[in-house]
């Protein structure tokens, strides 16, 4: 093949999914000349699985992405067709936003955002290899630096950093019963050459698997037999930029139905035909996203399983059958789906399938999401072993920010576990690794009371501003909100009824912020829903929040102790063998991260503490 012109960029992003979009947008917004590559234009911000954004933990991620200057929240607010706040019967810390997305409009909106973004290009070309520069062999550990990519057409593109966000496209293989084909999600072109070449560069790749349920024609379903699930009347947008904005849209409903014993019988009678059971699939699937055959065979005493019928958008007739992913053959799928009330005469436009793909062992990444093996190569999204649009977008944003900072020789943005769900997500991935596609859950966050949706901006916008990802406009808006909330908390301490201040009243479980309005005077400010929540929560749960802050402070001492990248752990006497091996592999950047590696004991941490102090004093006496 003839070599084409050589082109030079600052940042190259491989992929155009949720991770890639955030990475490309933020890199270009931070002033980098950036290009994104995809194998198909339809893959831009595509949702190959459920048509929704947010949910428990995931809603928190979207708010955090937004607080740091990312795009997911803004574009969801522009295109959603139903909005819901989950967990409202529980405390504010676990209130989670979820929106039904319009798949097509979300894709279109992101495409527009990318096209309008200065310094960002989108190219449809398959990347087959990385270009490495092995001359600058300064550090022994990292033998190479990436400085470009090669496409299937033989084109070479050079850059200072490359971000891999290949999602489920890399080495993608689709399974429907016995039927196996090489493919990306939604029948799009997979990326085949690249994984071979990444493997030969020494990157630790492995196979993961996930699945998606069938799609059905809207008019073929009988809605009278299902239960309607409406959106919330009060809509709280994802983006802090849209706070206080009124949303006047006709929300689309979802529908609830249940499987029954007949469904289960058909599934169990045909279980050996499932690709998951026949042994065709070698990849590891996620426990939280089991196929219907998995649910039925593992929980045999359950008489029914619920499923949600969700519209995929306004301009499409496709309905998504949530809760019913499967890798059984098409005819069996047809048989069991038609036993379900409302689905008796359903037309399946696309059967359920399982997909297997290549991804990297994330413990081979630094907390900045840069590869430990190849300098300036960043990785994000499903390629890192995560699952979910929101998890992908979070990593894409951080990888994008850190690619820019690496190019500028600035320190990377590493968020702590007590600061964000994004910090929890990335720390879990790079420190502990994962044996299944990783999904965020509020149970994974130790400091759940601090990590709320309502205060995501308070936690992160200042940091984003300092690290260059947050615009002046967003930062100003945030400062205004912050001051408004602080002022109001202060005011409530001084106003009140004859007996109590409002502050005291709010501490009682039976009073909400809204309840105070009728006793209040003209000094009461206009607050948005999020602001009200923040005021209320900060006062109501002050005691618990303070308790968590104490825990954080204890942890912080260890987080502030930096471990440099070139420590020879084998030379430190007193470390146990297992600890030496694990520390050498993970190369934690702080003592806090080291303490979270399984196999590193508190005694090993103490040994490291003493060793660090010794090194510090040695250095002082030398200089």
């Amino acid at each position: 093949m003839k070599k084409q012109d050589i082109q030079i960029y600052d940042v190259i992003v491989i992929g155009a999914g949720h991770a890639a979009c955030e990475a490309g947008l933020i890199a270009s917004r931070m002033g980098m000349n950036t290009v994104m590559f995809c194998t198909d234009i339809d893959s831009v911000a595509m949702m190959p699985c459920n048509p929704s954004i947010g949910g428990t933990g995931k809603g928190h991620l979207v708010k955090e992405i937004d607080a740091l200057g990312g795009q997911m929240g803004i574009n969801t607010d522009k295109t959603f067709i139903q909005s819901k706040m989950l967990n409202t019967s529980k405390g504010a810390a676990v209130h989670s936003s979820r929106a039904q997305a319009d798949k097509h409009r979300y894709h279109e909106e992101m495409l527009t955002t990318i096209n309008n973004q200065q310094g960002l290009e989108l190219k449809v070309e398959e990347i087959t290899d990385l270009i490495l520069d092995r001359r600058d062999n300064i550090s022994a550990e990292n033998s190479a630096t990436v400085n470009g990519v090669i496409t299937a057409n033989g084109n070479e593109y050079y850059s200072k950093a490359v971000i891999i966000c290949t999602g489920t496209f890399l080495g993608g293989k689709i399974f429907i019963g016995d039927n196996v084909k090489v493919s990306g999600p939604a029948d799009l072109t997979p990326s085949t050459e690249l994984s071979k070449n990444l493997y030969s560069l020494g990157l630790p790749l492995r196979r993961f698997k996930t699945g998606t349920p069938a799609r059905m024609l809207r008019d073929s379903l009988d809605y009278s037999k299902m239960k309607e699930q409406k959106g919330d009347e009060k809509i709280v947008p994802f983006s802090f930029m849209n706070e206080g904005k009124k949303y006047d849209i006709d929300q689309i409903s979802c529908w609830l139905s249940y499987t029954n014993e007949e469904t289960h019988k058909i599934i169990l009678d045909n279980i050996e035909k499932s690709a998951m059971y026949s042994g065709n699939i070698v990849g590891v699937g996620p426990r939280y996203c089991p196929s219907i055959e998995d649910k039925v065979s593992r929980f045999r005493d359950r008489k029914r399983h619920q499923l949600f019928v969700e519209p995929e958008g306004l301009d499409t007739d496709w309905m998504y059958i949530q809760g019913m992913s499967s890798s059984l053959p098409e005819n069996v799928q047809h048989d069991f789906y038609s036993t379900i009330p409302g689905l008796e005469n359903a037309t399946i436009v696309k059967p359920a399938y399982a997909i297997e793909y290549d991804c990297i062992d994330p413990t081979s990444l630094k907390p900045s999401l840069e590869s430990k093996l190849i300098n300036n190569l960043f990785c994000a999204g499903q390629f890192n072993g995560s699952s979910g649009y929101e998890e992908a977008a979070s990593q894409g944003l951080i990888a994008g920010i850190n690619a820019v900072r690496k190019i500028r020789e600035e320190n990377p943005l590493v968020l702590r576990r007590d600061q964000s769900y994004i910090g929890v997500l990335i720390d879990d991935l790079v420190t502990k690794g994962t044996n299944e596609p990783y999904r965020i859950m509020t149970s994974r966050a130790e400091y759940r009371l601090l990590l709320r949706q309502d205060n995501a901006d308070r936690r992160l916008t200042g940091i984003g501003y300092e690290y260059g990802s947050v615009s002046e406009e967003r930062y100003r808006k945030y400062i205004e909100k912050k001051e408004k909330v602080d002022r109001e908390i202060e005011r409530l301490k001084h106003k009140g009824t004859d007996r109590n201040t409002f502050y005291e009243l709010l501490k009682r479980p039976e009073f909400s912020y809204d309840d105070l309005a009728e006793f209040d005077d003209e000094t009461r400010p206009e607050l948005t829903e999020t602001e009200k929540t923040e005021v209320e929560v900060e006062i109501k749960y002050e005691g618990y929040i303070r308790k968590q802050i104490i825990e954080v402070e204890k942890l912080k001492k260890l987080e502030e102790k930096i471990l440099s990248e070139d420590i020879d752990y084998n030379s430190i006497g007193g470390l146990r063998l297992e600890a030496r091996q694990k520390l050498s592999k993970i190369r934690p950047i702080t003592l806090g991260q080291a303490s979270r590696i399984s196999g590193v004991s508190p005694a090993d941490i103490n040994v490291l503490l003493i060793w660090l102090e010794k090194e510090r004093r040695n250095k002082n006496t030398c200089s």
Partner: protein
Amino acid sequence: MLYNIGVTTDIIVYEEIIMAETITAISTALGEGGIGIVRVSGPSSKDVMRILMNNRIENIEARHAYLGKVYNSDNSVIDEAIFIFYASPASYTGEDMLEIQAHGSNISLKEILNRVLDCGVKDIRMADPGEFTKIAFMNGKMDLSQAEAVIDIIKAKTDLSLEIAEGQREGRLGAAIKEIRDNLLNVLAEMAVNIDYPDEDIEQYEYDGLINKLRWVLSDVDQLLDTASIGRIAREGIKIAIVGKPNVGKSSLMNALLGEGRVIVTDIPGTTRDTVEETASLGGIPIVLVDTAGLRETDDKVEKIGIQRTEHAIAAADMIMLVIDGSKEIEDEDDEILNYIGNINGDSIIVVINKSDLGNKVDENKVIEKMPGATVVTTSLVGKDVIESARKVSEVIGNKIDTGYIKTGNNNIVSNERHIKMLKNADMNINESIEMLQNGDPIEVAELSARYAYDNLGQIIGEDVGEDVINAVFSKFCLGK
């Protein structure tokens, strides 16, 4: 390249939180007579002294020896002691410090330690192994050349406590803790699944149900805590059966322990032909040593009675000391005894391999294999070796009592103060969780306290929360899209 970890967030902080913790431990070796010291280091040291002395000193002067009584919370007196307060930075650790020098008895030292831990000052906890030394080093109280030595101290002390934790995991306390933890985990999973999967078709939790389940867990913790009283050991003593075939040195061992001075004969309640009992005191803890006849299978009627008595003595014992002649290969008769006591938990067995002066033909590892969790000690009970051997054995007994979970009669006793403290923390956190649910506080707040309790219990057996809750959620509930 340096990583900036100190990125700051704007979380509202209501007042300055003083972070420094105060730590405490018994800092003299166990079972040594004379004087014992309880050490306290950290900002609350002075307050601890004030509280323990019942506010009897107006202005506490640093480096001044105060003689006074150590008061319990109910104003009863634990002991008389010398209190010395050291002001930062002129102390061993460089922090404010308190030394309480009391009588060397284990019981009174443990009671003082418990009093310090429970005296109500903020952020006080048991010191980690080697922590006083570590703080001293970090505060520049030791020079660089001592760094390796500091690491060695931490390592040695930690290895010991790790060994103990390993033993716990297999032992009776481990089993008890594990059961409580499993029950608590079920409640946690129920709470977690409802938080993370609000849409799922799962039976919605009800606060009353959760409260009831937590109460069950709490009552199990309380039951363990009830046995944690040091005073109980003092009252009932600990019964140790010495078993082994004839002529392995059982009597010599008993005499050595009684005669060596650390164990003092206080009473001779009676001897029988087949078992000899001696009551003694080890570091203040009453010990009943029972010398037994063999266990060899026989048709001889008289011998059979002897064997029965031995079996009774073993059943009634809190601890078993098996003596083996180390100069000979293990014989069938040794094996019979090993097999007989093999089903008793290893954490209450000490194997004494005797006659090391005549060579050693017994493989320690093989013995351990048969009785996991048992402690092995090698002795020689002739000539001048007697004193050293007796010292070694009494130290092992002392360690077992100090760190173990001892069965006295039908009761189990938690005798280690770190474990007691962890149980108390678990108790407090479960109570808090119940209280929150009763108040109608949000589920995720109550879940956190229950999770802390789960962590407290895990620390006793050296396990952390990790992915336990998430794993339990997925194994118990059917979830997912």
